[in-house]
């Protein structure tokens, strides 16, 4: 009996919990990073779309006019490109992307110090996102409302990959490793 209970609890904890905790939401539109920036793709670089504004702010998700630069009208034959042009570019609507790496309001993450000064590659925190051929569903934590990527894909929180987890503890760990002098206001606004 003891082991039955043990097994049951373990099952619930390891598999029931994630299923119950996260709600999966499909992205409004499909997008293939591989197609755009892979060497077998158009060969764009991350910075072509995810750039810094002149005041040092990271623009993050590019605006629709950015897509319009190439996709003024349909070039390929993919369904999502057609939708891109018809539903967003032509009417000039922004795409309501669901951002995997979105931090909460009270956290401030400046890209410039990490990308420009520390010269971290995007993949260090975002993983091989740039090589994906399609956008996985956004997983929203029902309790905290955050993206699953903040905690990391593995429910145990003990990710094996360096980019797993974008919690405060993950930031601090890296800062500690590189002897970055810390204070609350570095990252909290």
């Amino acid at each position, binding site marked *: *009996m*003891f*082991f*039955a*209970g*043990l*097994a*049951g*609890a*373990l099952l*619930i*904890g*390891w598999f029931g*919990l994630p299923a119950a*905790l996260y709600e999966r939401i499909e992205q409004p539109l499909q997008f293939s990073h591989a197609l755009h920036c892979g060497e077998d793709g158009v060969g764009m670089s991350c910075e072509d779309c995810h750039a810094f*504004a002149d*005041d040092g*702010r990271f*623009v993050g998700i590019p*605006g629709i006019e950015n897509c319009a630069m190439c996709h003024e009208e349909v070039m390929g034959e993919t369904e999502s490109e057609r939708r891109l042009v018809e539903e967003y570019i032509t009417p000039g609507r922004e795409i309501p992307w669901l951002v995997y790496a979105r931090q*909460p*309001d*009270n956290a401030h993450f400046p890209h410039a110090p990490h990308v420009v000064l520390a010269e971290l590659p995007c993949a260090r925190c975002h993983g091989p996102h740039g090589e994906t051929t399609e956008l996985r569903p956004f997983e929203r*934590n029902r*309790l*905290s*409302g*955050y993206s699953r990527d903040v*905690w990391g894909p593995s*429910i*145990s*929180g003990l990710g094996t990959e360096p980019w797993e987890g974008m919690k405060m503890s993950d930031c601090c760990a890296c800062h500690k490793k590189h002897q970055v002098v810390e204070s609350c206001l570095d990252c909290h606004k």
Partner: protein
Amino acid sequence: MDRQVTRRGFLALLGGGAVGTVFSPLPWKLLDDAAIWTQNWSWLPRLPRGEVRTHASHCTLCPAGCGISVRTVGGEPFGISPIPGHPLSGGALCPLGFAAHHMAYHPCRLTDPIRRVRERGPLAHVPIAMSEAISEARAWIGAAGGKGAVAVLDARPERVISTLYRWLLEPLGGVYVAAPGGEASFDALDEMLIDPPGPVGLDLAAARTCLSFGAPLLDGWGSPGALPGDVHIIQIETRPSRTALHAGRWLRLHPGTEATLALGIAHVILAEGWANEPLLRERGADFATYRQLALDLTPARTAELTGIGEGEIRAAARRFAQEGPSLALAGTDPGGGPLPREAQLAVWGLNLLVGSFGPPGGIVRRRAPAAPRRRLGDLPDRSIQLLLLDPSVTEAAFPWSLVARKLAGDQAKVISLSPYDAGMALRADLVLPAPAPMETRDEVTAPATAPADALALSRPLRRPPKGVLPVGEMLRQLAGEAAGFDYEALLREKVAAIEASARGSVYEPATGESTPLSGDLTSALEEGACWVDERPAAWPLPEFRLLGGGADARERMRRAVFERPNDAGLVLMPWGWRGAAGAGALPQVAAKLYRESHLRGEADSARIHPETGRSAGLRDGGRARLGTPAGFREVVVAFDAAVLPGVIHVATGPANSSFGDVEPVLGGLVDLCRIDESGSWRLTPVTVGEA
């Protein structure tokens, strides 16, 4: 036995479950998420996201026309800061200006027209459709027959909008009226000068000495707080205003004796021969009379009447006459109301004596001709059947009775164009929603006190709510879509005219430099530039009447000067801050300056000298009941050793309701005040009792 086993088994199951749970992420993950939730729970407002941009523009909250740089996130303004070195504001911005973008969300904000239904209570109203409102307004306008039956009250003339008002009035034989009050009143000056060479301005920046008769130079004169140049201020004011407290010299004169002191100073100037008498005699129709009046008023007598020491009077007079260029200003804070006519004449007159007309640092001429306007006081009583209030009148602080006595009884209608149902809009039977700051392109002209004309734009930086029309468009519809009622076109014409004149200079906020006007002004203004007219050459001293017009001019001045306005009893003197003197809507955060810190006098807070207070049976921080023939009002008492005994200075606003978290109230303290024949409400005998 079995039961024993199953029970034990059950316990074992639980035990296993417990152990398993501990070794599963469940408790830890949930604990962590719960912790995160408590730090950022869902009913906390979410921050806006989007690209952050900065735009140069101008503030339209008051006539000062301060240059501002506006930060927007995703097309929504979130931060306002002053533009250093701006020609109109000199890098300053008043407290309210910093929260101008909050006004769009003021709880009193109107997005639909409202019709007053007074039978359900003084402020009860119902929302109606814009089309319905317009047609109703037009019906009222049509119904108002006869010359002067329709009037427009505007606190900021000289704008394109003012032209549209005139066009609207023309076919109706209506009158365009400048709202009473404001810091500087040039009415008396206009009256003094026989055919003046156009409108005048004040060149305070270049002055070295300034005799300010109550002008709130540091409380909101032009751009609040920022006083250009290093002018020595002699503040002549009864109230310990911040200007008085920070002036080079403060003369605390008895209430209502400004005329006396001004003429007393004139006495010293004339007696000691500082004035250019031959010229004055040649130009001044009534100089001899004036001179005699002044000489009759000995410094001793002046000192006795005004309560200012003889020495002080002589010192002030000498400094004013010797340390030129110098200016004498007849101005008051917007709550205090204008000085009486005679006082204004006496004060402006001082400038004539020392030759401050024309040269830099004095009273200078401005280029653009002033459009004709009437004074409210000059209209016959009970003559107006339909009154239209410009948005700029919403926050005005004059006593409503000034207007009410001109309205033709109860059937007279009042229509207010206003973004908020607050302040003067509460008096209107129909309120048409006007855009809030930064919602439409708006025009900024030089304040009346500026030395030269100017033109700049307030740029549309956020989308106005659905159904809210620009003021120009509303006027077009009120005029029955008459031809030519095109605000934008008129504005372009105005700019084009300036371009054509190729006069003046353009200040570019981007570079912070002024360059002579050349070529395309329109696009420059669109980018937040500010055009400033060049100064006309000094002008010859025009003909003038020091005592003003009228057969009894001398007698009136004599009375004003030699009779002490109030001999016994307490006097009530209202006062208010620029932009916050009336009961108009204010940004909610302005509550920080009033409720949360008492830095500024909240509505109905009274400053009284401790002795006066105690003898009236009041205590510091207590409440008092003020009574005048016009009614009663409760005020909060604050003892202040700097206040003149016998005087009660009561702040006119803002009322608690202006911050939007309380129900608006009709009428303010000024409605208790006595209004003299020249339309001044500065002094009112008052009775005080403990509340």
